[in-house]
């Protein structure tokens, strides 16, 4: 779906991280956790390509003025890293943005009788909040959030408000444990009694580590990947990731935009 969204709010939630709320058409309310949107940041040629962002949350916006009709909204959580995100951060309430989405395949919510372990690194938390919101309805959910410093640990209060138990770790020790968040994950897995599923989003190195941890323990694991995207609809073949059996002789590339961004970690080929 392609639509023009109006910005409802756009605020810096942590140094360098912004949260933007935008209006959406009715159909958008059915967006699944893990799906993403492609945003046309500027009307002209600079930046030229759309930028992909996860869907942080969806909800219903009821305007304050009497008689106004309620309308779906969605939120993005983004980090300013370059030209496009810097421009996004300059936008204001009532500004308009051209949006393509929801795109891609989201997370598989699995069954109720297992513990849900969510692992997020930095802005990788973005697609995990909507996921947690759905998962808490039937399962115990724990969040493992990691980052370089405390500034990279985002929206923990929101997760706690859902009833999610949160573990945090930072490389510099400025918030939570000092070290990598995967250590807390391993401890939890070691203590685990019943079944569990892992959901992860974050830097490639973190995903690789989580996938290995899950594979070693035969625990199902879904990861949400990034990839440099031009189209978002499976046409340009820019965003691909190698599937598990990929080799030059037996090519097996998956489109992150249409086959993903969420994959079972076992489907993919991880560099070691």
């Amino acid at each position: 779906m392609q639509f023009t969204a109006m910005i409802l709010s756009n605020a810096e939630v942590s140094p360098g991280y912004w949260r933007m709320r935008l209006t959406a058409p009715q159909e958008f309310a059915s967006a699944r956790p893990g799906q993403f949107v492609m945003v046309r940041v500027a009307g002209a040629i600079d930046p030229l390509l759309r930028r992909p962002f996860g869907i942080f949350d969806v909800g219903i916006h009821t305007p304050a003025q009497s008689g106004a009709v309620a309308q779906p909204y969605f939120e993005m959580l983004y980090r300013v890293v370059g030209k496009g995100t810097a421009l996004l951060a300059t936008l204001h309430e009532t500004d308009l943005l051209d949006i393509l989405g929801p795109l891609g395949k989201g997370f598989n919510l699995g069954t109720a009788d297992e513990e849900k372990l969510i692992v997020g690194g930095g802005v990788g938390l973005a697609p995990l909040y909507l996921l947690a919101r759905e998962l808490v309805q039937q399962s115990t959910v724990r969040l493992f959030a990691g980052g370089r410093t405390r500034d990279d640990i985002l929206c923990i209060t929101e997760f706690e408000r859902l009833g999610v138990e949160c573990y945090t770790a930072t490389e510099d020790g400025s918030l939570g444990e000092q070290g990598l968040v995967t250590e807390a994950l391993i401890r939890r897995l070691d203590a685990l009694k019943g079944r569990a599923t892992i959901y992860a989003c974050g830097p490639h190195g973190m995903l690789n580590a989580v996938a290995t941890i899950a594979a070693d323990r035969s625990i199902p694991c879904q990861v949400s990947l990034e990839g440099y995207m031009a189209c978002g609809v499976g046409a340009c073949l820019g965003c691909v990731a190698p599937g598990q059996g990929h080799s030059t002789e037996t090519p097996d590339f998956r489109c992150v935009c249409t086959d993903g961004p969420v994959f079972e970690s076992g489907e993919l080929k991880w560099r070691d």
Partner: protein
Amino acid sequence: MKPDMSVNLAGIPLRNPVMTASGTFGYGQEFAEYVNLESIGAFVTKGLSLKPRSGNPTPRIVETPGGMLNAIGLQNVGIEAFIAKKVPFLRTVNTPAIANFFGNTVDEYAELARRLDDIPEVAALEVNISCPNVKQGGIVFGTDPDCAATVVKACRAATTKALIVKLSPNVTDVVVMARACEDAGADCLSLINTLTGMAIDLNRRRPVLANITGGFSGPAIKPIALRMVWQVAQAVKVPIIGIGGIMTASDALEFILAGATAIQVGTASFINPGAAQEIAEEMEAWLVANGVADIKSLIGALEV
């Protein structure tokens, strides 16, 4: 009054001159949600090879000022999967589908032309000669007039369908290439394919693309494409398809003035998936606003 937007492309009637460019529109179906495929003139599918190809490692794409580089590496499903999985969709659409293809040898080119000739759902063939000739140690077919002529002749002998030859812009004299392909039996020339470019990640001290260099497309290249279309239009008799940086109806009409009978929308479909349809609609609106009854009257109508 509704202006006449139809053009005839080497025997294929198009409802309007707007086509989509190979590699930027998948196999058509990917864009069906955003473009009414029956509102455009034709669409061209992703370049096909005999065997499936895995393409290059990532990163494959990077944005540059006003454009982008891609080094997909011609990843495609191969002719067999094309027939099995993609052709059925083509049958459902009442718009000419044109198959783009490439080989590593002259024989591969000819073999593909033969295979595609058998598919009734394929309205025409677009041969991509911007590939390295593995036999001649990597010289690109499309940058040497003799190589190009050999490929075109081989394909010509293998198909009775309209044969479109897609020219590379990475040449000293595009007119020499155009004439060689016309003489070798091309029914139509499409240009330009991507220019060769490169981007560097300063902090990592590495090329951005895993493949080091990539194909340069998008609005930035329009001046070069327009110049080449104009040059070739002076020199050949076969119809020309103009390609390169077309983002708007105005861009499209400029190519037609320069001598193109039809145009292809490439990178623009990434930025706006509905681009091809919008361009066709806005071209028609421009004709109405400017009292032009027939788009064919604009082909090559540039006053110099």
